[in-house]
């Protein structure tokens, strides 16, 4: 590794490492561009693709992001944007789970959906997309639905999980698994012009407040559908939360839910207390 670092130092422009040099180092030392990226960051060199992160994310923090593992459950409307933004941010490992293939009605909003990949698995599109936008990022695809059975394995080693699911039932299961494993989870959901998001930190239980027991498995999205912009807005807010969790910065949206109304451009904060939620809809 020392020889890689020495080579990188000769290629650096100031403290920036150009992409061509990152690729050259990978070829020369038979390493992945990801491992070269880690070596560069360790040596205090910022891969040049991240130079506009600089005032927001330091080299040390960029290394922290590279060494992070985020599990994205669902690769549809929300998940596609979440994968895109986390890959561009430079999070080193993305585990993406989704059992579905692309259908024509996904094309209006799902970033990964293209006419050319209709019928193809969503997780394969995630792998392909990330390899094109940031080859230093590793994507671990899982073409299965999240379940109580595979939850622990899927979330193993995760620094954060993103709830980009599309049923209330699965969301409640994911939140439960994250709680049991102590993994911070960022919830996001959409319906038409509306969306909501919240962060569940270890030790917290947000679902009884967001989805009171006895709720239907789906919400008003079954009637409203989802336009192109709502998933992009909510997914971006989720990624901002994940970034803060990974870096230990800022103030999370925990013990609060943000309800988003893009039709009237209103953002309502709903408190999520600790303790038991009222229940009578079972």
């Amino acid at each position: 590794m020392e020889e890689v670092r020495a080579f990188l130092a000769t290629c650096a422009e100031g403290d920036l490492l150009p992409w061509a040099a990152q690729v050259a180092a990978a070829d020369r030392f038979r390493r992945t561009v990801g491992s070269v990226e880690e070596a560069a960051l360790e040596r205090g060199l910022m891969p040049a693709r991240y130079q506009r992160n600089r005032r927001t994310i330091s080299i040390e923090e960029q290394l922290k992001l590279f060494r992070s593992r985020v599990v994205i459950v669902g690769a549809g409307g929300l998940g596609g944007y979440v994968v895109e933004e986390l890959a561009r941010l430079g999070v080193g490992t993305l585990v993406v789970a989704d059992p579905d293939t692309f259908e024509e009605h996904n094309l209006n909003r799902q970033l990964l959906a293209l006419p050319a990949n209709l019928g193809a698995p969503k997780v394969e599109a995630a792998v392909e997309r990330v390899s094109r936008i940031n080859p230093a990022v590793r994507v671990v695809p899982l073409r299965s639905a999240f379940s109580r059975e595979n939850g622990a394995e899927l979330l193993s080693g995760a620094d954060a999980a993103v709830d980009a699911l599309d049923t209330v039932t699965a969301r409640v299961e994911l939140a439960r698994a994250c709680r049991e494993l102590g993994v911070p989870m960022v919830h996001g959901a959409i319906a038409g012009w509306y969306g909501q998001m919240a962060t569940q930190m270890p030790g917290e239980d947000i679902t009884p407040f967001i989805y009171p027991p006895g709720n239907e498995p789906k919400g008003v999205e079954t009637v409203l559908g989802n336009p192109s912009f709502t998933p992009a807005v909510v997914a971006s807010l989720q990624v901002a939360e994940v970034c803060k969790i990974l870096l230990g910065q800022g103030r999370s949206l925990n013990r609060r839910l943000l309800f988003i109304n893009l039709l009237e451009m209103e953002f309502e904060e709903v408190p999520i207390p600790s303790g038991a939620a009222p229940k009578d809809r079972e």
Partner: protein
Amino acid sequence: MRITVKLFATFRKGRFDAEVREVPPGTPVSRIVEEVDLPEKEIGIVLVNSRHAALSRVLADGDTLAIFPLVGGG
């Protein structure tokens, strides 16, 4: 007694954003849900004075009730 009812998102369509209503003492949240004709299975978060409440919660004079639809799409 008087209460304030606030509706969110789709629940506003054909109804109102916020309204002060005169109701008899002992009125539960579920009675308001019926009066404003909200489909119960579409109801998500219910707050009384910014605290989560059950549909059986009995309202008091001056209470503010807020009702959000269930949002679960991804």
